[in-house]
């Protein structure tokens, strides 16, 4: 069986070819694939599995793109369209405990820090939203500035490549200038959304208005050059083929060779409810685990593979830890996008629940900051 050859390559630290990745997708030997991916994960991260206490903010669902796979977006004036008020966002963040870190550093009162510890503070806020037709780039800059001012110790991870491209077009600034201004305002890292599947024909079917794969990669390359680390995603399980998935990962691997700016790769399982892709279904649990595993094996220059439990469900996400994933994302308070498409997962996981899931998978839980440095 040809997996033997792949096994040899993996064990000797050699890079897999696209053909070999495809072979893995076509194989039903999930046990060998899982075992190899787990070995690869151990080479990168020992038995550690990372998680973070984080908060999601989706400032608006009004979007000029209206991708077919998206159940979250609305057009202006649609029923259910919303715009969050910046003051409200900040108030909410403060209320939910983000202030704790700054309090701890500014006072040495142990009772305060002890009490606030119990509130499970989060250290990162993840901000992504629709491409709002009326909001100016200054408005977005101001959003980042104000959050940073109110909560200086909170790490701001914000805006997908698609949003960055949009900011550049509405402001008339170059990508480089756009990113530098955001960075000056307080943006520290970027999520990896909007990548979907890079293939042109697939994009035409599922997200015709969205920037193409080339532009997505260009935004990321520029961000990396500016010193902003990012993630990378892949939305699978809609109309794409295994070849498209491999091609997608190959393009990411090539860019990572040049920039080393990607922190984590995050395969995202497509969710069919309330979307307009005909005949679309939930992905199978077996496909989810194989995709995680193959990404771990193929993307040898990525340090982390994330099992994003909101999309996978916490059960498959836990199993993914045995198939090469080393990151469970986090507590994820307030996620809205997957929920609009029929998420199979719980609303939020507590720190203890995350730790329990990781330990039961035989792994070592490590609470991390936004750059994978262990905290506490």
């Amino acid at each position: 069986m040809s997996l033997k050859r792949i096994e040899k390559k993996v064990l000797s630290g050699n890079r897999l070819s696209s053909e070999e990745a495809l072979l893995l997708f076509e194989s039903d030997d999930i046990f060998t694939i899982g075992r190899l991916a787990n070995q690869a994960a151990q080479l990168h991260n020992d038995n550690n599995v990372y998680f973070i206490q984080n908060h999601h903010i989706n400032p608006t669902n009004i979007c000029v793109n209206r991708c077919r796979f998206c159940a979250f977006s609305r057009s202006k004036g649609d029923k259910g369209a919303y715009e969050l008020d910046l003051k409200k966002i900040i108030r909410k963040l403060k209320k939910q405990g983000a202030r704790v870190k700054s309090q701890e550093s500014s006072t040495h009162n142990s009772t305060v820090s002890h009490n606030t510890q119990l509130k499970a503070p989060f250290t990162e806020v993840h901000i992504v939203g629709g491409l709002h037709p009326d909001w100016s780039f200054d408005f977005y800059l101001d959003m980042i500035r104000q959050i940073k001012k109110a909560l200086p110790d909170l790490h701001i991870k914000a805006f997908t490549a698609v949003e960055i491209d949009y900011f550049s077009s509405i402001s008339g600034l170059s990508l480089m200038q756009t990113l530098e201004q955001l960075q000056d305002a307080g943006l520290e890292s970027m999520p990896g959304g909007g990548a979907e599947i890079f293939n042109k024909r697939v994009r035409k079917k599922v997200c015709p208005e969205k920037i193409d794969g080339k532009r997505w990669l260009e935004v990321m390359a520029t961000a990396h050059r500016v010193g902003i680390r990012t993630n990378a995603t892949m939305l699978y399980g809609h109309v794409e083929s295994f070849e498209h998935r491999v091609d997608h990962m190959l393009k990411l691997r090539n860019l990572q060779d040049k920039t080393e700016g990607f922190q984590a790769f995050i395969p995202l399982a497509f969710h069919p409810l309330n979307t307009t892709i005909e005949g679309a279904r939930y992905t199978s649990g077996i496909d989810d685990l194989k995709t995680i595993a193959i990404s771990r094996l193929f993307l040898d220059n990525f340090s982390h593979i994330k099992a994003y439990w909101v999309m996978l469900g916490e059960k498959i996400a836990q199993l993914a830890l045995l198939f090469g994933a080393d990151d469970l994302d986090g507590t994820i308070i307030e996620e809205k996008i997957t929920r609009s498409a029929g998420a199979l997962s719980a609303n939020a996981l507590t720190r203890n629940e995350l730790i329990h899931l990781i330990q039961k998978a035989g792994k070592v839980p490590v609470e991390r900051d936004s750059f994978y440095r262990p905290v506490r």
Partner: protein
Amino acid sequence: MKKDSTKKTTLSRITKREGLQLLKNSDLLGLGVLADKVRQKLHPDNYVSFIIDRNINYTNVCINKCKFCAFYREQDDADAYILSRRTLFSKIRETIKCGGTQILIQGGLHPDLDINYYIELLQSIKSTFDIHVHGFSPPEISYIAKKAGYTLKKTILLLQEAGLDSIPGGGAEILSDRIRDQVSPKKIGARQWLHVMEEAHRLGMKTTATMMFGSVEEPEDIIEHLHAIRRLQDRTGGFTAFIPWTFQPNNTELGQNREQGTKNSTCKELHTATAVDYLRVLALSRVYLDNVPNVQVSWVTQGLKIAQVALRFGGNDFGSTMLEENVVAAAGVRHMVTIDDIVHAIKSSGFQPAQRNMHYDILRKRF
């Protein structure tokens, strides 16, 4: 990984000690390889079967009041019920309309219902409908017999004559009295459960066997359970399938104790089973129960995605389509699933779906 999990490739019967080692120390994927081999050997044709049926609960009044149960009510509770014949019949009619071939009829131990109620119930169903009646788990059979003052054998015979076709394997929970004393002290003991099944098998009646885990049991208790099933099966061959599923804590006494971090020592350390625990127990069950032909995956407690993965960890059957399910739903777990979803879930896991009856005869292969 401990050596026994990889060395074991001959698929011979494993001992209690080996079973315990696999459960406690094997790596999950290694155990999965074994279970997948056993499944392939027993079911080489690549079919994954399922049955179209409906769970009908004739009453929710129950004197047992198990701590893991969110379904039972006291007789004078506002939402206590006994299903009317009319409602029951309309449920059966709907089941047949949906292509169903069986009803699973179970209920609480209602203090006012006697054997005549059950006999009349069965006779009326059978004289009206052509449908397989899979009904009354061992705690119910045992309670009916006790109230009538009959032996188990006579009770089962009377029910069989009235139209009972087979007995579901519920109420087994964990067949270890140490655990039963904690989670279901009023329910029949392990020995009595096995005794009911043995009598049924001797009368030519087929049954299934279940196991509910993830409450307060230890690995040793799970092995004790599997061992008891395997021994009885060696004698009778009457079990068609084994169905492990996990305790669902919401709205139950046991779950409540867990949330409150109660000082009640039995529940302090309670963590419900994760997906890894579920697959481990499922895979071990497939390997341990070499004499039970079928192992069902539990999409009702695990969701479709884990059920799909479970088909590679020893499961060969998707169980029932559950046109109606009340007991797990009472614990807040409800996966809205249609027959089409089940067919697609099986196909996209790389298997061929096949509709079956309780005897695992295939009724339909084309979907």
